[in-house]
């Protein structure tokens, strides 16, 4: 970070290899759009480079990193306009099936995320990226801690059933 703060961008590669995928997942959970997630991750690393001087080395890196990411996300939400799609370019039903059959990682991620509700995804983000306890998440979302636990567990099961099973406790 000290090197970044002095204007050298070489350490970005190291940061990207350590935190890049997890950051993309952070944006995937929020946006459900793999392309947007990649753009937002790029923008976050750009901001990390620009704001490296504001990082205090005595403080932990992760909360600062995800605060920058959260700000990038909020700015993106403000910029985003509702998509306007002319009727004639809407895909036919057959094209939708074709798209569903795609096996790319993006499509897989999309399909997985479509199985989760907005609240489930928010719970995952708050738990994993913000490190909140269940009762804190409950307070934030207006749910009971038990409901948060149930939703979180169901979300984990959905991810496990649909994705490659390599997780362990």
């Amino acid at each position, binding site marked *: 970070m000290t090197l970044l703060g002095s204007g050298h*961008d070489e350490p*970005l*590669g190291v940061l*990207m290899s350590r935190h*890049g*995928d*997890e*950051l*993309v*997942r952070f944006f*995937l*959970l929020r946006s459900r759009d793999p392309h947007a997630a*990649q753009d937002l*991750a*790029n*923008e*976050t*690393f*750009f901001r990390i*480079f*620009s704001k490296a001087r504001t990082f205090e080395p005595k403080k932990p890196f992760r909360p600062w990193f995800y605060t920058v990411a959260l*700000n990038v996300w909020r*700015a993106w*939400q*403000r910029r985003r306009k509702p998509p306007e799609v002319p009727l004639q370019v809407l895909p036919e039903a057959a094209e939708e099936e074709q798209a569903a059959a795609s096996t*790319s*990682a*993006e499509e*897989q*991620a999309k399909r*997985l995320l479509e199985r989760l509700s907005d609240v489930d995804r928010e719970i*995952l983000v708050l*738990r*994993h990226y913000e*490190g909140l*306890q*269940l*009762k804190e998440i*409950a307070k934030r979302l207006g749910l*009971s*801690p*038990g*409901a948060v*636990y*149930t939703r*979180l*567990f*169901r*979300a*984990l*099961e959905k*991810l*496990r059933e649909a*994705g*490659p*099973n*390599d*997780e*362990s*406790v």
Partner: protein
Amino acid sequence: MDLSCNDVRNLLEPGGSALPLSDERAEQVAEHLDRCPDCDQRLSRRVAGALAALPVGAGPSLPAVRDLIRREQRRSTLLRLVGLAAAGLALAGTGWTLLRVPPGGSAASKDRVAPPIDTVIPEPPKLAELPELERNIIRSEGVVALYLQFCLTCINNPTDQDKQEFLTRALLIFREVRGRIRSEFEKSAPAPTTEAVTLNALNDAIRILSTSKLASVNFLPSKITGFKFPTPDSMQVDHILGNKTWRLTIPTLPPHLNFAYLKTALGANDALMARIEESLWTSVYVRLPARLEDKDPTVGPRSLEAVLPLLSPRQQAVYRKLVGTP
């Protein structure tokens, strides 16, 4: 019944055997997890493991980030060059003014002592002496400008970024609405009352404002139901906020903060007025309704600080008179 760590760890095992849990049981598990750091850590690992299984197609790209950095650097360089060019022009202009011989100037005229500025500065016009159309526009515009600033602070607790964005948008909205104010006064026959035009203008302003809400500025009045000037120095707005109608009574803008009046009093062109507006709008104008109500003594000095650097010496003298500072 209290749960042991073993019970909870069994429930956390992948496989879903733990579901469905009764509400009571789920609350017990959640309570245990919040109390027991070991089990909580297991849950964290479980979540991290599940998320790691989420496939990431293309990750962030170093060349793309470098491209963003390069673009930003180019933009900063360009801005710096523009700034330098502007400073150079200003210096050249000042130098030229100082060095050039006044037309018809002679050695005798050089010896003549120039009259002090304040002896040739006209008194700024009094509002009551201006033509009726101009007077109406000044009053109406002043209300809209002040009310837009009120919207930022009514119940809202904006983040710094949202505050900045709101101010930018609000100034654009103000500029759009003032065009309509002028045309309504000019076109309508018989001449509408200032209060009727102002009421329409306020409704126009909040309608435009509501089309692009900001996350932390979401409490905006939905309609203005009435407007009047109960006294020459105060304005009264009846507006619907939430489901209730509220009445806001605040002092009107002092002349030295009224853009339409300043344009006339300073004889400023559009470019200078745009700079004055931007400078005041993002400084003295912020929380101005409350400041005026509290008779905040810093309003005058802060106005001088924001406006004087933009003015010529003659205009500076006029503006000082308006603020009431020697």
